[in-house]
């Protein structure tokens, strides 16, 4: 069953100083199945947050359809089962954490008797028990992120929509968030989150959708991602010289040089022998031959480096901003 369905969503925005409208989402489509963790990946300005806002009813799509649990976007019946964490959350500064969570819980329709117990539990989960009575304006960025996660899971939603959930957190905090998401996944919750931190996505997601310039360019399952790497072989050679490349160029997909060593990715297994024999003949030493597993990073870089549907040959350099660990 698809918990979240986004079909052909288009959205235009009018820029501040002109009457002309610019299309920012060009028919975005993605579905999240029940119990799935769906990652949402894209460079800055690709349309991730806009898509999320359309899903949540904060923005209206010009065309297309969004349903959450078969209810239209923004419908209270669907929203009652959704937990949302915005990017760099900011809350009511004068409220204490307890008051804030009680406010959120009441708005989510939680019963007055359930609230105290549930608040205590989520506060403990995000490790903010010592700060319950403090005003949110005294919270650091990391603490606000945890408080944001607490309000998102407070009412035990069936669908979690998280925009950059790891933002502002130290390694301990990121581990905490990962553990929470893993636990939610085990309990059959559906999670849809965007992030720049690729290793976390690789570790958590069942499927990933890559968006670029307002278009979904690829949706791929992690198991499929792993199979993409099959057939390629990485050869590590010492004593590499540039003059060695002609003769094996057509067999080598990519190479990386570090001083005297070179790492050559051979397109297919059947070309490995020819490459090795050529390298030996040129005087290089073969240090290692290993089968290569394609990474999310490689896939991402490939997808966003291709000429896009809107920009032709223009390479997107925004990808350099994300970090991996």
């Amino acid at each position, binding site marked *: 069953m698809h918990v979240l369905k986004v079909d052909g969503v288009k959205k235009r925005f009018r820029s501040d100083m002109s009457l002309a409208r610019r299309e920012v989402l060009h028919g975005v489509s993605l579905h999240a199945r029940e119990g799935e963790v769906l990652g949402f990946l894209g460079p800055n300005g690709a349309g991730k947050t806009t898509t999320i806002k359309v899903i949540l009813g904060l923005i209206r799509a010009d065309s297309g359809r969004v349903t959450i649990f078969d209810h239209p976007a923004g419908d209270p019946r669907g929203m*009652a089962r959704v937990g949302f964490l915005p990017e760099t959350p900011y809350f009511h500064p004068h409220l204490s954490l307890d008051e804030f969570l009680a406010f959120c819980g009441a708005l989510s329709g939680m019963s007055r008797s359930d609230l105290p117990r549930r608040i205590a539990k989520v506060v403990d989960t995000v490790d903010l028990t010592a700060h319950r009575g403090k005003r949110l304006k005294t919270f650091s960025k990391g603490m606000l992120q945890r408080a944001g996660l607490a309000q998102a899971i407070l009412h035990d939603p069936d669908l979690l929509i998280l925009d950059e959930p790891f933002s502002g957190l130290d390694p301990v905090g990121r581990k905490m968030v990962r553990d929470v998401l893993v636990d939610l996944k085990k309990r059959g919750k559906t999670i849809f989150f965007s992030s720049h931190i690729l290793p976390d996505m690789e570790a958590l997601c069942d499927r990933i959708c890559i968006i670029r310039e307002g278009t979904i360019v690829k949706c791929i399952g992690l198991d499929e991602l792993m199979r993409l790497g099959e057939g390629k072989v990485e050869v590590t050679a010492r004593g590499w010289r540039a003059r060695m490349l002609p003769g094996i160029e057509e067999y080598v997909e990519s190479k990386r040089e570090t001083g005297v060593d070179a790492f050559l990715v051979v397109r297919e297994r059947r070309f490995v022998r020819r490459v090795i024999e050529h390298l030996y003949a040129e005087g290089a030493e073969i240090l290692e031959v290993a089968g290569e597993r394609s990474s999310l990073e490689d896939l991402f870089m490939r997808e966003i480096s291709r000429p896009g549907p809107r920009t032709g040959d223009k390479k997107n350099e925004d990808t350099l901003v994300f970090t991996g660990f």
Partner: protein
Amino acid sequence: MRTIVTVALNTFRESVREKILAVALLFGVILMGSSVFLSPLAVGAKQKIVMDVGLAAISIIGVLVAVFLGSTLVHKEVDRRAIYLVLTRPVSRTAYLVGKLAGVVAAVALVFAVMTAVLAGTVALGAGAVRPAVFASVYLSLLETMVICSVVMLFSTFTTPVLTSFFTLCIFAAGSMSGDLKVFASKFGGAGMKGVAGVFYCLLPNLRVFNIRHEAVHDLPFRATDILLATLYAAVYSAVIIFFACLIFRRREFK
């Protein structure tokens, strides 16, 4: 209903913790205190002046607090994106706005209660008596504030706090003079002018109906039916303005 109450309580809590409320209250108390301090200069009008200043302070500060709170609270939540956490819950935008209005009015009511107590104490210290008309006047000032709050909410759904405050204060001034505007148009305008004036007369809040300060100060009679009529007018006017505010707010996109 629970949503409205929840948002109202939260807004009330937030308003009460705003420094401006304490400052406004302090200012009001100082103003009333100064009227007592200056009353020896009043020569024969001491009680009148204490009462005039007290009731006017309650009214003016109520309007100013309503304009400030109303214009900043919604805008701050939107600007800081705290509103996302509200509107992404099973909460209708109408309930949110109504709750916000109720919360601001409740905060203003608290200010009124404190200032009325101070006024009553001041009058009692001067061996005067606080007549029922004084409480009726304060109640009507609260209704007036509720009407002004609804106008503030309307503007705050689509414009900045500065413009919201400016427009609302203009509406307050025009509403205080709406009867005179109508008379002026009827004396000096043609049929077209009269028609336009008539429309504006209905659209602008008629704030005179909420003013019995004069009757309260001079212990003049006032009709209970007038209070009831003013209450109904305030309820209808506020409801209509909030309806239009909700129409705009429902269409608003949070980019």
